[in-house]
């Protein structure tokens, strides 16, 4: 038990190391642009989210909802030895499923939003299933297959949305509003955070985080998924159906990313599927969220809120004539250093005892094969 607590501690330490370095780089960039405004600008990044009190906190949860889930999708796949860079595609396809049901199936009444959300889960799962099948049966690298699926999904969604009249608002070149019954209920959060866009989505996201944590840590199924991630051949030898595990991993990862899309486009906050040939940024942000949390589901909840918090603070940067992209720069630098942090973690483990190092190395070895 003692070993485990040290490991968790070093994990958090390496993430904090990356965050601090990222923030320092951000501060340096601000100084280069405008030395006088740099410090107040930097303070805004750190505290801007609280500018409007409870409303601001609500906004943070609203921004956090989709990226917690895309982060969870990436993190879950990582835990099972797969790199799901397909979250943008799964996200947009899932979002499309939700919008489709949300606009067309208006006779469902009170369960309308649930049906729309389930559709987004199914569509996302389908988009994750393809790279999973290709990996399991044809040994196709899931990174490349997922990248291909991203673009196929994006173009397909744009194509269908644009060519199917009931879905398309041609004045604004985006999808139409979903029916009011398809919007995610507020679940009382509008009382706690008055005036903000937050809705029940954050509660659903937290429940999914807990569910995934339980699956990974408390079930045989989750254990098998992780075992295949550590070492595919050894798992097969131990009697685990490794093909099935890979397929399920990618399907679940896709389903979570699809749900993220559903929750965003059903939020009723004026978010529509825009017909642009650009992959949704929420998908890529998910990679940052997962990496920062070292793929721990509970950690992902906090890193998602953290990145949403920085993003919310970044909006107020325009007061200082800095553009909000500084947040993306900071996050990118954090991720870059969190890749180093794996090395830092290894070093700390080495100091703490050889046993931890060996287990870490065997993990690394299994992932690469």
């Amino acid at each position, binding site marked *: 038990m003692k070993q485990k607590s040290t490991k968790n501690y070093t994990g958090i330490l390496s993430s904090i190391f990356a965050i601090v370095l990222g923030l320092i780089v951000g501060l340096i*960039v601000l100084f280069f*642009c405008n030395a006088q405004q740099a410090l107040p600008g930097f303070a805004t990044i750190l505290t801007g989210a609280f500018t409007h009190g409870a409303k601001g906190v609500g906004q943070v949860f609203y921004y956090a909802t989709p990226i917690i889930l895309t982060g969870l999708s990436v993190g879950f796949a990582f835990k099972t030895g797969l*790199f799901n*860079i397909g979250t943008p595609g799964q996200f947009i396809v899932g979002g499309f499923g939700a919008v489709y049901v949300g606009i067309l199936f208006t006779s469902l009444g009170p369960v309308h939003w649930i049906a729309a959300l389930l559709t987004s889960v199914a569509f996302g799962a389908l988009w994750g299933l*393809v790279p999973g099948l*290709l990996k399991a049966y*044809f*040994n*196709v*690298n899931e*990174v*490349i*297959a997922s*990248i*291909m*699926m*991203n*673009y*196929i999904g994006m*173009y*397909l969604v*744009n*194509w269908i949305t*644009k*060519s199917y009249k009931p879905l398309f608002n041609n004045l604004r070149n985006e999808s139409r509003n979903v029916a009011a019954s398809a919007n995610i209920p507020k679940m009382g959060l509008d009382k706690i955070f008055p005036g903000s866009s937050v809705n029940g989505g954050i509660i659903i996201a937290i429940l999914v985080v807990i569910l995934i944590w339980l699956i990974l840590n408390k079930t045989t199924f989750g254990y098998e998924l992780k075992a295949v991630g550590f070492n595919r051949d050894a798992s097969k030898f131990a009697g685990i159906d490794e093909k099935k595990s890979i397929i399920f991993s990618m399907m679940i990862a896709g389903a979570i990313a699809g749900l993220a899309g559903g929750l965003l486009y059903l939020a009723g906050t004026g978010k529509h599927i825009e017909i642009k*040939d*650009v*992959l949704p940024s929420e998908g*890529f942000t998910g*990679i*940052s969220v997962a*990496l920062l949390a070292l793929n721990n589901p509970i950690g992902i909840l906090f890193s998602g809120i953290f990145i949403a918090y920085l993003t919310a603070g970044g909006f107020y940067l325009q007061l200082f004539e800095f*553009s909000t*992209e*500084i*947040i*993306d*720069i900071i*996050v*990118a*630098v954090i*991720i*870059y250093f*969190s*890749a*180093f942090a*794996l*090395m830092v973690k290894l070093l700390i483990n080495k100091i703490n005892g050889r046993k931890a190092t060996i287990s870490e190395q065997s993990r690394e070895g299994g992932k*690469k094969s």
Partner: protein
Amino acid sequence: MNVVYFIFQQTMYFMIPLMIVALGAMFSERSGIINIALEGIMTMGAFTGVLFLSLTGGNFSGQGQLLIAAVISMATGMVFSLLHAYASINMKSDQVISGTALNMFAPAFAIFVARVIQGVQQVPFSNTFRIVSVPVLGKIPFLGPLLFQNAYVTTYIGIVIFVLSYVVLYKTKFGLRLRSCGEHPQAADAAGINVYRMQYAGVLISGALGGLGGLVFVVPTSTNFNADVAGYGFLALAVLIFGQWKPVNIMFASLFFGLMKAVASAYSGIPFLHDLGIPSYFYKMVPYIITLIVLIFTSRNSQAPKAEGIPYDKGQR
């Protein structure tokens, strides 16, 4: 016949940057370092190159300006790729993570700096580089209109890079050493090759060609740069795999992808395709679908470098 010339000229605009970037990535991957930061490297290269074109646009034009911009783009790409090299070679990071970080960094940085310098994020430039017809060569029947009319000097640079890549990879000592590092770095090290230096060389070449590819993509197809190379870095990765990490195959793969992109962007100007009535989205999707299908058939006996993606650790020799 004019239609054929038109399609081919359009194809060149899309094919050459893909080929340049994929060839660069080939050097990186054959030295054993996965480089998915191509998109970011292209963005950075295109940004500095176009920024130079924009800032010097008032009193400078023509091929000389473009060539200087190309050198700037290559230098930028190399400097930027150093970050990836340091993370993956010295720090032994997961190469995919470091590449992802660079991909996220580049567009944010380009927008941020563009806003600081000129207030808006789009960097406009005036295109004075199109060669209507190359003297003498442009008059050759058939080949003239195909290759030497409505062309850019970057097209010929791309062809030179292709030939050089082939020669360097297969006919020089450096190429042999580089390839051995991607296949079995421990053996290469035992034979006296400095693996780290070879891998740095591979990543830096991919940085230089990636940066150049970014500029080469933006100049013919746009009139301003908006911190975005439209997924071409990822497409180049697909070209690399489609081309099975070999220069000649990469050339043909980029020709095919370039053709599909050209058809998708210009099909309404091509009578017989316009009459078919297939929406442009179809042509946009096809390269990706075909790549997936090709992957199914080639992944069993993939020609990927054996040691790709595994940080080289001297201690494991």
